[in-house]
């Protein structure tokens, strides 16, 4: 089906509902619709196999004196993004679509907290991204809120931060967690009966920073790379992809290839890391040590190609900063060959250890319908039978020149997600080899570019954890609005489904199996200076001890 015929269907539906199409570009359609028809249109999209990617609230008072909420849907089979825009004043209520598309709940709450868009259906819910003692009617992402303003905390409300009944606290600091996250598991004996999740402890205000005078289009890739430690390159790639889409910049082929190569290398090392962690959680330390030993050459390879083991810093708008020459190519191929051989041996042992198979299979099950409703991404989706992969559905960079399989398992348990990641490592190694062989000649960056203001674009990149979505409204010199939706943000709500009714002993493997990356997830703004920030953490932790064991 071609774009125009799909477009026809959307156009007709829009006409029926009285909205209008604002822009069409490449594979993005931006439609504007009134509040009353939002639910119906969302329902129609959902029934036509659209997945909700995210939604972004924007303070557009400087453009057209309105507050706007953008819902971003993706039609996977056609590779089209549909951005649904509803706007109004800050007194109007936008209807929620979370009863039709449960995946919308988190991002709508975020828009409500950060921009102050009122959403009917969410009035009673407590603050989601911001802490409970954040002052009322102070909305960080509004344009009149300066990026370095520090509001006073309302200490009277602080007790509301703590849940009334206490279960088994897992976090914010717990030996097994690598980042602070707060799960309360209510257990009866060894069975988990309910889950309470409170995240967003590591909120750093990246979206607001990007709009501040401190950053420009040129420097934001480096900011984006620091969104996450393991998958930073994904974020910077997605940012430059989105900006290039918005400004219609033609990036040289060679740069696209290099970006894809580095993305796949990041995927390989991230999956190896995760497999080691999973083995460690299951007590199989021998597997953990061996997998991380195998991961080391991949880090060395990254350093060879980009100059750093982790935060590469090679992405710029319009290209990359470092090139790959012949000797590097040869060395890279040799390293990858060794990694593949050793990895095969370790994996054969890993899946033959009886305890690992017994503990991972049948646990943490996410049924396909729930996966669809919550619009999960990445290995979590592929382990539950959903064939979603951004590299195939919305091809970007150089992926259309490669051929690879997308592993899909239908059981939806921890073992399925593990096997998906194992298969993906082999596929990634093969992709890098194909790309290195087919590397075209040419420049690695455009000479110059112009970024016109107030263009909108959506970009998505397949991170090791799933689909990473960036939405940009370009401004003057820097984005007007930059929305980042990391994959873990989309996958975390699925944990409620996976953990309920499961034995406690599986809880950690299940939490780890979505490969949570809380640095990516917790990006809403909590503006503290260092002193009150640390005081807050201490209070939260100490408060737990007194909150009635």
């Amino acid at each position, binding site marked *: 089906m071609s774009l125009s015929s799909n477009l026809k269907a959307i156009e007709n539906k829009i006409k029926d509902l009285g909205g209008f199409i604002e822009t069409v570009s490449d594979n993005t359609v931006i439609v504007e619709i009134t509040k009353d028809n939002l639910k119906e249109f969302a329902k129609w999209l959902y029934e036509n196999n659209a997945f909700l990617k995210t939604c972004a609230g924007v303070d557009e008072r400087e453009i057209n004196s309105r507050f706007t909420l953008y819902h971003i849907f993706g039609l996977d089979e056609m590779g089209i993004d549909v951005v649904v825009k509803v706007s109004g004043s800050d007194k109007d209520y936008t209807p929620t679509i979370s009863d039709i598309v449960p995946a919308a709940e988190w991002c709508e709450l975020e828009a409500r907290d950060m921009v102050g868009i009122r959403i009917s259906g969410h009035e009673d819910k407590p603050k989601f991204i911001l802490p409970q003692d954040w002052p009322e009617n102070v909305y960080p992402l509004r344009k009149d809120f300066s990026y370095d303003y520090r509001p006073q905390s309302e200490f009277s409300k602080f007790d509301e931060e703590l849940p009334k009944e206490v279960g088994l606290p897992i976090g914010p600091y717990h030996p097994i967690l690598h980042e602070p996250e707060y799960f309360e598991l209510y257990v009866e004996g*060894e069975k988990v009966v309910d889950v309470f999740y409170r995240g967003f402890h590591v909120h750093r205000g990246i979206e607001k920073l990007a709009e501040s005078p401190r950053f420009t289009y040129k420097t934001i890739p480096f900011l984006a790379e620091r969104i996450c430690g393991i998958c930073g390159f994904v974020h910077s790639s997605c940012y430059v992809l989105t900006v290039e889409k918005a400004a219609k910049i033609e990036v040289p082929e060679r740069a696209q290839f290099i970006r894809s190569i580095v993305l796949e290398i990041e995927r390989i090392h991230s999956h190896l890391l995760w497999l080691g962690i999973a083995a460690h959680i*299951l007590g199989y330390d*021998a597997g953990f040590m061996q997998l991380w030993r195998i991961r080391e050459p991949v880090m060395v390879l990254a350093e060879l190609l980009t100059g750093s083991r982790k935060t590469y810093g090679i992405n710029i708008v319009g290209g990359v900063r470092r090139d790959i020459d012949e000797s590097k190519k040869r060395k890279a191929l040799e390293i990858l060959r060794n990694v593949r051989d050793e990895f095969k041996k370790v994996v054969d042992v890993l899946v033959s250890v009886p*305890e690992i198979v*017994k503990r991972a299979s049948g646990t943490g099950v996410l049924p396909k319908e729930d996966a669809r409703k919550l619009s999960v991404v990445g290995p979590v989706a592929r382990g539950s039978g959903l064939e979603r992969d951004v590299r195939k559905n919305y091809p970007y960079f150089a992926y259309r020149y490669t051929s690879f399989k997308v592993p899909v398992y239908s059981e939806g348990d921890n073992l399925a997600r593990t096997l998906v990641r194992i298969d993906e490592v082999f596929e990634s190694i093969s992709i890098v080899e194909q790309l290195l062989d087919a590397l075209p000649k040419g420049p690695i960056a455009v000479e110059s570019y112009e970024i016109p203001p107030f263009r909108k674009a959506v970009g998505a990149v397949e991170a090791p954890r799933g689909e990473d979505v960036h939405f940009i409204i370009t401004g003057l010199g820097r984005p007007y609005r930059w929305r980042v939706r990391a994959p873990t943000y989309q996958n975390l709500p699925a944990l409620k489904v996976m953990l309920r009714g499961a034995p406690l002993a599986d809880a*950690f493997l299940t939490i780890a199996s979505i490969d949570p990356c809380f640095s990516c997830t917790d990006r809403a703004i909590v503006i503290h200076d260092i002193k009150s920030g640390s005081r807050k953490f201490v209070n939260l932790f100490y408060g737990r001890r007194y909150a009635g064991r």
Partner: protein
Amino acid sequence: MLISILLILLLPFLLAPIYDSIERKVKSLIQSRVGPRGFIRSLLQSWFDIVKLFSKELVITGYGILIITMLELFLIASTAILLQILILFNNLIVVKTLFIVFLSISTAFFITRSIALNNPFASIGVFREFHIVLSTESFFLPSLATVLFINASLPLKLMLLIIIALSCYVLSSRIPFDIAEAEPEIASGVNIELSGPLLGVAMYSLHIKRYVLSEVLSYVLLKLFNVHLELYTFFVITLLTFIIWITTSIISIILARTRVDIGPATMLKTMIILMILTLLIYMLTVK
């Protein structure tokens, strides 16, 4: 003579951490990493760790945790001494009885920790340990008593050896059965509120427990061959203890951890089958 007997009685207390250090070195070699570095550390690393723990501040978090930890050490130490006496002087029935009593108490004493500590993780750890111990001890102790007190036929002794070997492995808090204290989500479970000297005492008790269990197994192994247990066989037993310790550690390195519901259920099924087979063999071989 007295000095040599004293030395023999003290042997477990000196050797247990040394064997643990060697186990750690073996583990690191299997996992392709360095581990305790150098010859001295390969032998004495666990001793260094215990000494270092004793140099830290004593923090007592629960009422009674100090007494309970010291009592655990006392009980397992008494068990170890009784085992040494049992091996040296074979036919003292009082010693054998006392040994079985002390062994059963010291492996079950951990339950008191959950009373002393008001900590949900400790309770869960105790709960899990309870499952494991319950599924093995009820078979372990009668089999051990049979071996100690009765002169059984060879097939019967072989079956009992299998039960005892399995139990000794399970009760030694090793992967796959260390779910009470090593499972990451319960943040070291039963050991959660121990630190500094208390943790040092608890670790030392664990080493002695492993020594006792390995030595019990080597004793039963020798009994299989009807060897008269005298002083010179003592050295054989000490050597066998070392071999059994290292073998069980290698098994634990290549396996992963089981789960609180899978582990005890598997153990229970296995033990029941073995017990039935033992009874059958007994009925077939008795005249």
